C-alpha cells in the first residue's frame, strides 16, 4: 500500500482482489507471437500443457516456454506487485497514477470496466467485473499520440475519455466518468511518461535495473566480427582512424577498408561523401573475397563534381577482389530521386568517372513513402478487417510492393556477390536507411551465421546500430512530436523482409517469429538501451552500456523461447538463400500486423508437433544411452565374474 500513497488516487474504490492473469493484449513478452499463435484457445492450451511440463521439465519445448513464462509472471506478481490492485512492476518501475472506474472500450469484446494504472514504464488496465481478469498492458514507449475524446457535456455512453495511438498498430480507447475531470490526471501522467524527453524526464531504460544471466552488451565485438570474416587479410585491414568519431560522426569507431588505402585516401573519400560516410566493409565472401561495402551518396551536385581520390578509393575496393574486374554500385533509390538529389548537392556516380563500375538503381522509395504506406496498412488491419476487400486492400497500401523491391534489391546484391564473384558497393542518400536494409538482408541471405540467434543480434548491432541508423528520429523515443517527418518504419520493414525469407526457408533460421516480434516490441518499449540514440558516438557519450540493460541480455537469458524447432543446421544445407521476390509469395505478416484481432489468430501446430517429435527423439536417445551404459557395466562386471550361463546355443541365436 505504500506505493499507493505516492500515487495519486482517483475515485478510491476497492472492489477488486482477484489476481490478474495475463491477457492476450498484454504486450510483454508473453503477448506477441506466442499468444497470437495459440489463439483464443490459449487458456485451455495453457492448462493442458502446463500439466505436461512437469513430466519433461528439462527439455526445450513449448511446455517449457509456458512454464518459464508462468514462473516469470509468478515472480513478478509475488515480488514486485504494488499492492493488491496495482500492476506487477519491473525493477525501477513506479506507479505514477491510478484511475478507477475506467472503461476500456475493446474493439473486439466491447467495453470492460476496470482500473487504469500509469507507471514510468507502462499503462496497465485490469478489469474488475469479469470472472477472469482482463488485462491490457502497453509500455509507454509504444505510445505515439494521446488525445482526449469528448467533453464534459458529450452525450452517449463511453464518449468521454482518452484515446491512445500506438506505434505497434493499435489504438486504445478509455472512457472515464463524466465528472470531476476524472481523466485529467491520468492524461497528464500518460503525457509525461509516454514522452519523457519532451518533459525533461529520463527514458525508462535509465531507471530499469534488472540483472540477467547474460550480458547482451558483449554480444557484438566489432573486431571479433571482422576477424570472423578473416580481416585482417592481404586485401582488407581494420582501421581505427575514426576512434574519436572525427572522420564520420555517424560511423562506428572501428571499420575495415582496403589494405591499400591510406588514411589520406579515407579522409578524401569521406570529404566527397554525404555526411562523411565513405565506403567501408560490410561483408566479405569467405571463398571468392567478393565484398559488400556501404557508403552514402557522392557529393556530385548540379555541377557534376568529381573526386579523383574517391574514384581511386572505389577502384581499391574493386581491386581487393581478384576474381572480378568489375564493381557494381547499387543505388537503392529510384533513378529520378537520385537525379533530384543533385540539386541538394548529392547525386550518384557517373560511369565515366568510375571506370569499371556499373551503376544500378534499385527503385526503393524514401522514408516518407514508407511511413505513408504503413499508415495505410494500420488503417486496414486495425481494429477490424474488411473481409470482402482484404486482398485488394493489402495491395492498395503498397506495403508488400515495397517489401518486394527491398527483397529484390538484396537479391541482386547476393546474385552479384555469390554467383558472379563481383564486389558490390551499396548506397542510397545518406546510407543509413535503405542501405542498412539492403546490406543486412544480403548478409543474412549469404551467411548462415547471421541466421542464428546471436548472429542476428550481431547483424543488427553492426549494420543498423553501429553504422548509425537514426533510431531516435525514426522511432521518436520519448518524443511527443508524433507527426515528425523523420519518423519512418525502415527497421520494421527490414524485419518484415526477414520474416518473408523465413517463410520461404522454414528450416534456415535458428530463431522463430516470436524473436522478431519481441525485438520489434522492444524497439519501441524503451525498457532496454539497445535501440536508444542514433549513433555509436551518442551511445558512448551517454554511457548507454553502463546505464542501461541490453535487449540481448533479456533475450539470451531465455533462448528457448526464441528457438525455431525446425532449425536444421546440417553442413552445406541452405548455405545461401535465394528467396523469390514475387507477390505470389510475399504475404502480409498477419501475426504481427493483425495480432490484436482475435479472429486473425492462428495456431502454429507445425511448431508444436515438431517440438513433440524433438522431445521424443531426445528421450529415446537418452533411453538408448542408458541402456547401453547398463549393458556396458553389466559387461564389465561379467569380466570379473564367471561367465553367465549360455541361454541360446550359437546355432539358434
Amino acid at each position, binding site marked *: 500500500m505504500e506505493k499507493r500513497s505516492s500515487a495519486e488516487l482517483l475515485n478510491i474504490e476497492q472492489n477488486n482482489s482477484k489476481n490478474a492473469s495475463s491477457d492476450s493484449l498484454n504486450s510483454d513478452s508473453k503477448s506477441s507471437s506466442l499468444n497470437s499463435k495459440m489463439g483464443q484457445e490459449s487458456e485451455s492450451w495453457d492448462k493442458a500443457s502446463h500439466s*505436461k511440463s*512437469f*513430466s*519433461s521439465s528439462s527439455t526445450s519445448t513449448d511446455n517449457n516456454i509456458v512454464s518459464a513464462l508462468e514462473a516469470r509472471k509468478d515472480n513478478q506478481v509475488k515480488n514486485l506487485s504494488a499492492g493488491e490492485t496495482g500492476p506487477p512492476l519491473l525493477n525501477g518501475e513506479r506507479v505514477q497514477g491510478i484511475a478507477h472506474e475506467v472503461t476500456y472500450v475493446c474493439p473486439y469484446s466491447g467495453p470492460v470496466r476496470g482500473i487504469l494504472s500509469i507507471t514510468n514504464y507502462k499503462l496497465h488496465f485490469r478489469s474488475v467485473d469479469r470472472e477472469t481478469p482482463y488485462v491490457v498492458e502497453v509500455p509507454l514507449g509504444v505510445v505515439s499520440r494521446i488525445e482526449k475524446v469528448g467533453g464534459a457535456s458529450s452525450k452517449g455512453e463511453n464518449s468521454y475519455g482518452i484515446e491512445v495511438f500506438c506505434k505497434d498498430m493499435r489504438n486504445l480507447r478509455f472512457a472515464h466518468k463524466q465528472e470531476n475531470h476524472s481523466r485529467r490526471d491520468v492524461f497528464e501522467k500518460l503525457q509525461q511518461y509516454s514522452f519523457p524527453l519532451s518533459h525533461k524526464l529520463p527514458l525508462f531504460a535509465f531507471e530499469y535495473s534488472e540483472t540477467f544471466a547474460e550480458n547482451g552488451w558483449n554480444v557484438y565485438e566489432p573486431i571479433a566480427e571482422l576477424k570472423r570474416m578473416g580481416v585482417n587479410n592481404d586485401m582488407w585491414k581494420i582501421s581505427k582512424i575514426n576512434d574519436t568519431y572525427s572522420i564520420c560522426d555517424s560511423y562506428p569507431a572501428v571499420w575495415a577498408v582496403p589494405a591499400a588505402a591510406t588514411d589520406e585516401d579515407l579522409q578524401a573519400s569521406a570529404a566527397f561523401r554525404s555526411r562523411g560516410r565513405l565506403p567501408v566493409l560490410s561483408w566479405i565472401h569467405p571463398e571468392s573475397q567478393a565484398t559488400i561495402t556501404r557508403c552514402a551518396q557522392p557529393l556530385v551536385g548540379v555541377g557534376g563534381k568529381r573526386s579523383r581520390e574517391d574514384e581511386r578509393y572505389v577502384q581499391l575496393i574493386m581491386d581487393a577482389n581478384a576474381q572480378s574486374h568489375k564493381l557494381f554500385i547499387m543505388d537503392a533509390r529510384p533513378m529520378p530521386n537520385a537525379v533530384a538529389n543533385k540539386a541538394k548537392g548529392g547525386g550518384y556516380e557517373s560511369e565515366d568517372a568510375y571506370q569499371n563500375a556499373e551503376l544500378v538503381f534499385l527503385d526503393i522509395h524514401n522514408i516518407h513513402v514508407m511511413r505513408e504506406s504503413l499508415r495505410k496498412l494500420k488503417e486496414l488491419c486495425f481494429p477490424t*478487417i474488411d*473481409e*470482402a*476487400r*482484404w*486482398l*485488394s486492400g*493489402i*495491395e*492498395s497500401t503498397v506495403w*508488400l*510492393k515495397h517489401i518486394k523491391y527491398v527483397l529484390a534489391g538484396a537479391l541482386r546484391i547476393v546474385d552479384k556477390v555469390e554467383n558472379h564473384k563481383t564486389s558490390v558497393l551499396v548506397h542510397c542518400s545518406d546510407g543509413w536507411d535503405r542501405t542498412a536494409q539492403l546490406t543486412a538482408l544480403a548478409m543474412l541471405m549469404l551467411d548462415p551465421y547471421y541466421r542464428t540467434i546471436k548472429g542476428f543480434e550481431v547483424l543488427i548491432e553492426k549494420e543498423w546500430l553501429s553504422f548509425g541508423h537514426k533510431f531516435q528520429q525514426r522511432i521518436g523515443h520519448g518524443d511527443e512530436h508524433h507527426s515528425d517527418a523523420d519518423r519512418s518504419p525502415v527497421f520494421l520493414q527490414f524485419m518484415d523482409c526477414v520474416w518473408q525469407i523465413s517463410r*520461404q*526457408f*522454414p*528450416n*534456415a533460421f535458428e530463431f522463430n517469429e516470436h524473436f522478431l516480434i519481441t525485438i520489434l516490441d522492444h524497439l519501441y518499449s524503451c525498457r532496454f538501451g539497445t535501440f536508444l540514440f542514433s549513433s555509436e558516438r551518442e551511445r558512448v557519450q551517454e554511457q548507454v552500456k553502463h546505464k542501461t540493460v541490453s535487449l540481448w541480455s533479456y533475450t539470451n537469458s531465455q533462448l528457448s523461447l526464441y528457438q525455431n524447432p*525446425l532449425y*536444421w543446421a546440417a553442413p552445406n*544445407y*541452405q548455405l545461401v*538463400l*535465394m*528467396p*523469390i521476390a*514475387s*507477390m*505470389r*509469395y510475399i*504475404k502480409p505478416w*498477419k501475426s504481427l500486423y*493483425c495480432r490484436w484481432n482475435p*479472429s*486473425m489468430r*492462428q*495456431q502454429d*501446430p*507445425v511448431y*508444436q*508437433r*515438431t517440438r*513433440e*517429435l*524433438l*522431445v*521424443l*527423439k531426445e*528421450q*529415446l*536417445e537418452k*533411453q*538408448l544411452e542408458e*541402456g547401453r551404459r547398463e549393458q556396458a557395466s553389466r559387461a564389465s562386471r561379467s569380466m570379473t565374474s564367471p561367465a553367465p550361463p549360455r541361454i541360446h546355443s550359437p546355432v539358434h541365436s
Partner: protein
Amino acid sequence: MESKSCNNFISYVELEEHEMQPLGSSRRNSLSENNIKLLPGESFVTKAQNVLMFSPVSDLNQGTSGILSVTNFKLTFVTTDETNGDDVARQQNHLYGYMDTCLTNIEDIYVTVGDKKRKLLPGNIVPSKVKGIFIICKNLRTWSFSFKFSPIGDGKNLLQALLHYAFPSKHDLLFGYDYQEAYYSSLDKAVRLFRDISDWHNELERTIRNEKFRKFWRLSTVNVDFKLCRSQLIDAAKRFQGNRPPIWSWSNARGAALVKMPELSPLVTNRIQENIMFENVRKSHPQKMPPVVLELNKGISVKLIAIAFSKFASLCSPENIRQFWLQDNNFYSLVENTKWLKYVSYCLQKAVEACEHLHLGLSVILQEGAGTDLCCIVSSLVQLLLDPYFRNINGFQSLLQKEWVAGGHPFCDRLGHICKRTSEKSPLLLLYLDCVWQLNQQFPAEFEFTETYLTTLWDAAHVSIFDTFIFNCEKERVAAATDPDRPLVLRSVWDWREQFNEQDILLFDNPLYNPHEADSKEKHVIKPLYNVANLELWSQCYFRWIPTLEIHNGGQNHIELYARLLRNDVNQLKMSINGNCCSPTDKSNSCSVQMNIDSFYPFSNRKSGNIVSTPIMNSSILATKSLLEAQSLITATD
C-alpha cells in the same frame, strides 16, 4: 529421356519388384518406331519433326528441339537433348512420362498464325501455316511449341490430330476403353467404394453406435437396378431435380444426421413432397427435432465456380515471363477479382455452420440443385471436420467414394472429359481439394496425407485410364463395365501402385500426422478459420509449373522433409531400444528420401544440384504405431 525415365533413384522396393516381375516396367510399355513408349492398346497417330519446345513462362527465346507426337492417349515430346531430364528426382508416373500430357488433361489450345494468337475449339478449321501452339492443361501446366523449323505441314497435321483426339465427342473414345493391360487390383480393402449395400450398412453402424438411433434410417435397395419404380420414395424422387431422393450422409453420436437433398424440379409447384421429406428427416431424429436446412445456392453456383477458376487459372499459367511480372504487379487484387478464394471460404463457412448445428444435436439438410455439386463439397467437409476417420488416407478415399462417386457427382461433365455442348464444366473437385488443403494447413497434425497427395489426386482426375472420375454416375459405370461387346475394366484410382512406385507413395504420407486413438470416445473436431484473410494460396498445386517461382533448396516442403527425417530417427531409436536388430535399411520397409529439394518437389521441373538421399522407413503403419506407443512417453510421468 523417355527411355530412361523409369528409375532414377535407388530403391530397394523397386529392385524387389523387378526381381519378382522380370519384365519390369516394359510389361506396360513397348517402344514404337518413333521412340515413343506406348501402353498396351495405345496407338501412334501422328508427329511433327524439329519442333522447338520453350521452357514454361520464359522469354520464349530458347527452346529444346525434338519430335512432338500425338497418340490416342497422350501428347508426347521426345528430345535428343541428353542433358534434359537426367538425374532429376521427381514423381515418376508409370503410365506417362514427364514430357507427356494425357489428352484428357488438355484444357485449351491456342494457335499462333503470324503474330496473332487464337483459341482453337474442336471443329474449328486448322490454319495451314501454324507457327506455334500454346497449350494450357487442366492441372495448369503449360506447353509452348514452335513449328518454325518443322517440315511444312507438320504443324497443321499435328494440330488437327490433337484437336480430334483431345476433345472426344463420345465416352467410349476415352483411352480407358482401349487400354489393354490386364488389371490385378492391389487396392487396399480399407478403401470402401460404396458400391454395394454392405459398405453403407457398415457406415451406418460405424457412425451410429446406438442401435435405437440407427433404426431411424433404412438402407433402400429401391435403386439397385438404377430404375426407380416403386412406392412413395419413387413418387417423391420424381419431383426432385435429377429424380433423386434425399440421401443420408453421416450421423453423429447423438443421432443428428447430415442429409443431402436436391431442390424440387422447377416444374413442380407443389411443395408437398419436399415437406414429406423434411418430415421424414425430422422423424429420423431421436428427439424428433426439426432439421436445419442449409441452402447452398445463394451467390454461388457451378457456373460461377467455373468462371472463377478460369480467371484464377490465367494467373497460374502465364504464357511468358513478361505476363508473369505484369500479373505480379497487382497480383492481390487480381486474385480477389477471380473470387476463387471467396468460394473456398464459402464452402468452409457452410461446413462450419453445419457442424455447429450438428453439434447442437440438430439434423442438417444440405440443399442445392441436383444435390450433387456443392452438397458433395460441404457434406464431405463436414465429415472431415467432425470425424477423424476421414482424415486418414483410406478414410478420405472412402469419403470421396461415398459422397462424390456413389453420391453421383457428374465427374465426366464437370471435369470436361467429353466435349458436349450441354455439359457444364466446373472444377468442383478442385474446389473441394483446395478446401481440404486449407484444413491441412491449419491442422497439419490431423491429416494422414500431405499436400502432395492432394495435388497428385487432382492430376489423377485427368487420367482417363481410371474409372473413378470418368463417369457421371454409378449407372453409367455399371453400364460401361457390363457392356457385352467392349466391357471397360474398372481400375480404381485409389490403387496408387498402378501409377507410382513406393518412393512416390511414401510422399503421400504426412510425417506430422498425429493420429488419435481409434477407440477414443471423444471425437476430435476441428474448427477451421474460413475468412479469406485466413486462407492461403495453394502454391504447390497452382504454381508448380512456373519455374520462376521455384525456391531453390527451400519452400514449405522442407518442413515435411525435416519432420520425415525426425520421425525416421525416432523409429530407428525405437527399434534399437526394443532390441530389434534388423538394420534400418531393411529391404522390406525402407525407401530413400531426397534431401536437397526445391520447393515444388516432387513436381519440380528444374534440376537440383546434388541430390542427396537418405534411407527412410516406408511403412506408415509401422511408423504410426511405434509413434503412438512412443507418444505415451511424452505424457507419462517418470
